[in-house]
């Protein structure tokens, strides 16, 4: 029960959710709801793990994970953008497809140990008391990449021209189309980016946070939690980061609760009977629901909402929103 350790581990675990949630923010900002995050993550985790194992090069592994997630997401793109199919059902089938592919291709991978993403200290910054060891020491490269991704995403979406086009396509695609922005092209692109980041999130698990291939247990629903976080975050990368790291720390803190025999002066019930651990394992899922409730209430109060065209297919020349 050491706060420093919990926060440190929380940042690492939270990076998984961060990548997936930011990817989903990009896709949803463009108006495409992609519920296939869990499937893309699992495929990414498998592709990264297996590539790193066979080539002995972890960077190729990460690249493979990104590509695998991206390619899989294009299936969702084709079906929802061109065929105008229901995005919910298509996303669900993407989860099945990704999970199935990962299981079939990932046969016999468990129990192996490939090269992992290296961890290192950031010079100078890691010397700062408390903050240094928590944020800047002994983290994998991916955690630092996550730090950079948050401000970049925010700047990109809210301050840069392509980000403005992205938001226009998600809010009012017919207006964007009139202004010469390719609605289909933009949507494909950000669905692809979302897939790439989900794939990277998967590889973050299998090559860094909890290395290994444990079939569907590898992701154990984190893709869904990431989608929940996006709603909680109201499609804002800063809030998504806050949620992701908080969740990461909680996940870790929960594990640590089972350790000590005495907790706050009482016999620790979790230590006495490990079966109470099942209730601890429920907490991330229950917290996701709570986060959603909080997010929805705030959204109603502030009249904030999902991108207006989220889930609505765009057909040129038809009355849309």
């Amino acid at each position: 029960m050491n706060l420093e350790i919990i926060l440190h581990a929380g940042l690492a675990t939270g990076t998984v959710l961060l990548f997936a949630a930011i990817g989903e923010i990009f896709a949803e900002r463009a108006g495409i709801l992609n519920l296939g995050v869990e499937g893309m993550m699992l495929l990414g985790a498998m592709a990264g793990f297996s590539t790193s194992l066979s080539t002995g090069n972890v960077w190729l592994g990460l690249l493979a994970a990104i590509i695998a997630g991206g390619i899989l997401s294009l299936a969702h793109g084709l079906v929802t953008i061109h065929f105008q199919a229901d995005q919910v059902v298509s996303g669900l089938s993407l989860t099945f497809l990704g999970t199935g592919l990962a299981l079939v291709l990932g046969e016999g991978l468990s129990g192996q140990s490939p090269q992992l993403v290296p961890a290192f200290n950031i010079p100078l910054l890691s010397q700062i008391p408390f903050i240094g060891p928590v944020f800047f020491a002994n983290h994998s490269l991916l955690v630092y990449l996550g730090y950079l991704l948050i401000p970049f995403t925010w700047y990109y979406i809210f301050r840069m021209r392509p980000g403005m086009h992205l938001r226009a396509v998600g809010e009012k695609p017919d207006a964007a189309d009139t202004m010469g922005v390719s609605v289909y092209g933009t949507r494909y692109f950000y669905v692809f980016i979302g897939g790439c980041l989900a794939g990277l999130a998967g590889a973050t698990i299998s090559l860094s946070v909890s290395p290994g291939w444990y079939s569907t247990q590898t992701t154990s629903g984190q893709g869904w939690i990431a989608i929940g976080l996006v709603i909680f975050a109201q499609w804002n990368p800063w809030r998504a980061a806050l949620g992701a790291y908080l969740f990461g720390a909680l996940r870790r803190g929960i594990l640590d609760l089972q350790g000590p025999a005495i907790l706050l002066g009482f016999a620790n019930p979790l230590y006495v009977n490990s079966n109470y651990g099942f209730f601890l394992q429920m907490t991330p899922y229950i917290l996701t629901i709570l986060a959603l409730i909080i997010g929805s209430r705030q959204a109603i109060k502030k009249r904030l909402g999902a991108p207006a065209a989220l889930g609505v297919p765009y057909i040129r020349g038809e009355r849309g929103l």
Partner: protein
Amino acid sequence: MKLPFTITFEKRVEDYPKWLPAATSIGSVVVAFIISGFLLKLVGGEPIRVMNFFFQATFGSWAVISDTLVKATPLILVGLACTVAFKMKLWNIGAEGQFYMGAFFASLVVLVPLVPPETSGFIVLPLMAIMGMVGGAAWGFIPGVLKAKLQVNEIITTLMLNYVAILWNNFWIFNKWSDAGFQMTPVFEKSAWLARITDYARPYSEFIETGGGLATFMTAIGLERISGMTLHLGFIIAVVAAVVVWWILERSKWGYEIKLIGDNKEAARYAGINIVRNIILVMMLSGALAGLAGMTEITGVVHRLQERISPGYGFTGIIIAWLAKLNPFAVILVSVLFGALLVAGREIQPAGLSQLLQGIILFMVISSDVLLRYQIRFVRLHKPAAGEVEPA
């Protein structure tokens, strides 16, 4: 090379022909099988042999047909659960959790126990069915209320509750009712078993000896042996449930409201339909059907509460509902196909293959929906007359 015609997609002006949805569904399954065959070839399998094995293992004899129908039973019920919710565009993907909660509540009847152990099955089983439905409905009620009152996205809440339900079940199986430390409860009393065909095996063999027209007929179709056939009463329950769901959706006022909300929420609101109430009720009905599936599974198949009673039935239910185009009777047929996939999946390697096939099938189905909205036309290009410039 230049084709003498071009292929164009045109938006349908008239309604599509009645047979088309069924045709696209069947076509999707066939295409999905072909694609998976290629994928299997790619990873070094033998698709033809696997497919042949698939049909032998699932429809090859009466015994395996019985196995297939056993697997189809919970699928029909969860398929119906998804159907009613999806009709209202309510995305209940928590049938898995509702299934587990149904199984848990139904088990309470014999594990607590709520009735004395020597109670007749005619009381125990209906009570278990009711409890199962109550459990599932309760698990559907939570996301229903959150959606209706607070506009909380039901996709995520139902999904999160799946994990909670499975962990909840595990707690009781491991902690309270563990059978000598195993991850399962003791076997239920026989009064809590749904009747199976094999239970009638002895009287039937005597029946064969006495001879008669029916016996000759049964022998002729190869049904001499029914011992070992585990098809249980749950299948009948599931089929009855399909009829009830059909009646609710197609013949009752409530069903009309559900469909109207699904088609056009605003119109429904102006028509004075209480949307809040309907969201909660439909989620509860959906949950109750999934919970009933949990009950039939523990009373008809495993006869105890244990870990992993569902290999993802709740999720397969989503695909089934969609493939059946939300038609309760089609749900039965599609469930039999998916039951077959599950039966074969137990033996087919690699293990994820049947899940992969499910994903591809669902993708094909939603892609083929484009054919319902657009028609493909082959437009013949006319020969350019002399002097006329051929269009680029």
